[in-house]
C-alpha cells in the first residue's frame, strides 16, 4: 500500500506523489519510513532523501527542516530541495568555489556561518550527483 510523499519549501511544493518507501536524513541518523508508520514529527538534517516507487529509487538533496509523518502522508518541510536531475555539477562546483573564496576574505561571524551552511548544502548536492554517476 503506497503512501503520499510531499516535499515542500517556502517557495513551492517541490514534490508530491505516491511512493512505496522513503529514507530520510534525520538529525539522529537515517530514518526509513514504510506505509503504516506511526504519526511522528522529527527534525531533518541536510543530506540525501531517497524514495522508492515501483522498484525505482530516486534521490533528492535536502536542507534542514522538519519531517511530519501522519498515517497516510509523509511531509518534508525544508528550505532547500533539489532533485538529482536538477543538479548541475558545474554550477555546484562554482558555488563551492565562490563560497570558499568568500571564506578567505575577512568576514563577520554571521557571514561565516551562512557561507559554511551553503558549502554544506553544495557538498550534499555534489555528493549525490557523483554517487548517481557511479551507479550508472
Amino acid at each position: 500500500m503506497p503512501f503520499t510523499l510531499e516535499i515542500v519549501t517556502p517557495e513551492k511544493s517541490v514534490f508530491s506523489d505516491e511512493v512505496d518507501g522513503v529514507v530520510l536524513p534525520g538529525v539522529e541518523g537515517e530514518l526509513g519510513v514504510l506505509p503504516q508508520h506511526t504519526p511522528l514529527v522529527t527534525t531533518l538534517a541536510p543530506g540525501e532523501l531517497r524514495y522508492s516507487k515501483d522498484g525505482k529509487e530516486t534521490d533528492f538533496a535536502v536542507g534542514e527542516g522538519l519531517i511530519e509523518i501522519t498515517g497516510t502522508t509523509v511531509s518534508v518541510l525544508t528550505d532547500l530541495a533539489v532533485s538529482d536531475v536538477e543538479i548541475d555539477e558545474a554550477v555546484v562546483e562554482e558555488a563551492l568555489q565562490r563560497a570558499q573564496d568568500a571564506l578567505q576574505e575577512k568576514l563577520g561571524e554571521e557571514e561565516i556561518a551562512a557561507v559554511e551552511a551553503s558549502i554544506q548544502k553544495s557538498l550534499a548536492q555534489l555528493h549525490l550527483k557523483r554517487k548517481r554517476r557511479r551507479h550508472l
Partner: protein
Amino acid sequence: MPNTRDIRRRIKSVKNTAQITKAMQLVAASKMKKAQDQATSGRHYADLLNTVLNNLKELTEEDAHPLLETRAGDRELMVVVTTDKGLCGALNTNLMRKVTDQGGEQTSYVTVGAKGRQTLSRLKRDLVADFVVHDPVHFADVKPVGNFIMDRFLAGECNRVTVAFTNFVNTLSQEPLIETLLPINPIDLGRDREFLGVGQKEEDLPEKPEGPGEGGFLFEPSPEKVLDMAVPQYLNYEIYQMVLESRASEHSARMVAMKSATDNANDLVKDLTLEYNKVRQAAITNELLEISTAMKALE
C-alpha cells in the same frame, strides 16, 4: 509665438516618455502577479508548519523556547522593508514616516532595500545592518535576515523586534504596517497572521493537511528539540512572507504610478497637438494674407 518645429519636438519627446512609462507599467503588473503567486505557493508550507506547531504547543511549556520569552526593557530592533528603486508613488514615504514616528532613542534599525537605508542614514539613526534582497525574492536571501535578528535577540541586545513593511491590501491600496516579530506571542504561534493578504483568497489552495488522528504525534528526539527547530523556521517564513508582501505592494504601487504617468503624458500630447494645429493654421492664414496683399499691391 512658439514655432511649429519646437512644438513637434516636444510632442515627440512626451510620446517617448509615455512609451517608457507604459512599458514600466506592464512590467510592474507582471511582477506583481509573480509576487502574488509566490506568496500563494508557500501556503502549503505554512499550513504544515502550523499543524506541527499547534501540536507542539499542547506538549510544551508556554515559555519553552527563548524566542517566546517576554523581557522588560525598551531596546527595540526594527527591520525596515522598503523598495530598492523609486517611481512607486508615495509607498516609501508613507512607510518611512510611520517608522520615524514610532522609532525612539532606543531603536536600532536593520534595513532591507536601498530606500530605507538612504533615509535612515540621512537621519543619522542607529543603522545596524543592511540586507540586499533581489527580485524575485528567494527564501535563501531572506534567511540571513532572520538568523541575524534571532542572534541579536538571543544575545539580549534588543528586547523587542518589529518589522515595518507595506501590507498589500489590493492593487490600488497598500498600507504601511509595523508588526511585532519577537518575542513571538505564543497565541499567534501556529496561526495565520491577519496581514497575509497576498497569499490568501485563492480558490485553488491545497487542502488543509490532516492531523495525526488519535493519539497525537510522537516527537523525536523530544518535543523541545523539535520546537527548537520549528520556531526559527516559523520566524524565517514570517519574514519571507512580509518581504513578499512588500514586493507585491511595490509592484502594484509602481503599476498605478506609471499608469497615471502614461495618462498624463497622453493628455499632454493631446494639448500639444491642439496647439500645434492652431499655430500651423495661424501660419497658413498669415501666409495667405501676405500673398493676397502682395497681389493687391501689384495690381
